């Protein structure tokens, strides 16, 4: 079979049945839990995981939470509520702003931003992004900070090492606090926590270790993002969720996952990645994607680097081997 964008198509009905069967087996017989707790954001991944959970365990055995905080897009909680009603599951909102303020998350993050842009204050919005020129050049993933003034004026600068680390470390409290809250509800209900990461996020390391990376089962971690979308119709995900642009919903300025991490549209990155995994010659991929071989190689290198350099995120704590006598 020759390579085309279509190779990434899956049989949605068959794949849904397979995942649902595995979820029942793992949650019931391996984890010995009685249902599923899931954080929903109004995004496609958590919506699909919610729908899969309902299919696997029944709506009465699924407990959904929205966990907004000061920087969340208000639309996310609105969509999350609609989604919970749509699937008929129990749903609560746990607002994490006070807890995060208690950890001084906003203060710690803003302190680092102000080191880069002294004019930054609470009236500004901010985000961190990667360069958008991956197709043109094999650039390395060094983040830039963008601030947006109340008047809409944008400024972008490369972030020095210490400030970068502090911004990320402070922001990661958000994902870790959400995981704490998910496990609170999971433990009190004797349910399993469903992780909502897809293959792109899991394998390339787009998650917070012990934050959104922490879960009992990750039912879509083997699916490319474009394959997750393919399950949407099968699982009756509302159209308005299917049409949303994936964002981080972590930074105060709107920040798409493409500009924060993946650097190319999913339909491009996924097909190229599939080609890599199946040893399809670069020239064949390039022809199918209507791209140059250099562009395909830049994307392949970026994906390979991310997979390699995120191994530690996916690893359990390392142990020292016992000395052999």
């Amino acid at each position, binding site marked *: 079979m020759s390579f085309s964008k279509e190779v990434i198509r899956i049989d949605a009905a068959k794949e849904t049945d397979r995942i649902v069967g595995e979820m029942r087996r793992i949650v019931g017989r391996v984890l010995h839990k009685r249902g599923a707790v899931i954080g929903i954001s109004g995004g496609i991944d958590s919506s699909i995981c919610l729908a899969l959970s309902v299919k696997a365990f029944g709506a009465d055995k699924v407990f959904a939470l929205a966990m907004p905080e000061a920087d969340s897009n208000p639309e996310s909680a609105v969509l999350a509520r609609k989604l919970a009603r749509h699937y008929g599951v129990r749903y609560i909102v746990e607002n994490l702003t006070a807890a995060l303020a208690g950890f001084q998350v906003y203060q710690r993050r803003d302190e680092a931003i102000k080191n880069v842009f002294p004019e930054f204050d609470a009236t500004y919005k901010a985000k961190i992004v990667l*360069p958008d020129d991956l197709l043109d*050049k*094999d*650039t*390395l*993933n*060094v*983040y*830039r900070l963008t601030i947006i003034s109340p008047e809409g004026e944008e400024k972008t600068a*490369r*972030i*020095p*090492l210490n400030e*970068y*680390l502090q911004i990320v470390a402070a922001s990661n409290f958000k994902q870790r606090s959400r995981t704490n809250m998910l496990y609170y509800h999971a433990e009190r209900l004797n349910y399993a926590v469903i992780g909502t990461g897809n293959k792109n996020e899991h394998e390339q390391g787009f998650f917070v270790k012990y934050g959104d990376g922490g879960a009992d089962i990750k039912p879509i971690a083997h699916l490319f993002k474009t394959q997750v979308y393919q399950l949407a119709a099968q699982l009756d995900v509302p159209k308005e969720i299917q049409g949303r642009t994936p964002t981080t919903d972590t930074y105060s300025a709107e920040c798409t996952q493409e500009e924060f991490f993946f650097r190319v549209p999913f339909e491009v990155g996924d097909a190229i990645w599939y080609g890599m995994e199946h040893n399809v010659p670069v020239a064949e991929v390039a022809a199918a994607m209507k791209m140059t071989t250099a562009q395909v190689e830049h994307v392949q290198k970026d994906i390979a*680097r991310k997979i*390699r*350099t995120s191994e530690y995120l996916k690893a359990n704590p390392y142990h020292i081997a016992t000395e052999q006598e």
Partner: protein
Amino acid sequence: MADLKSTLRQYIIDNFLFGDTETKFADGDSFMDSGIVDSTGILDIITFLEGEFSIKVNDDEIVPDNLDSLNNLDAFINRKKAQLN
């Protein structure tokens, strides 16, 4: 005074290998492919270059050809210094 490549090698050993000289890497080995640095490490290298050699690394210069081996770093710094003169 140590030559440039030795200074760079010592920086890599001190900062990324905790002084472990048992880990061998050749002058042409990719830091990223050999698992010595990740993308945060690249930012660390940029910070070091800008502080130590008084050069400014531009965004469009953050590419493996400039930063991802001792040979590449050595050539890059020499090019940047030549531009300053």
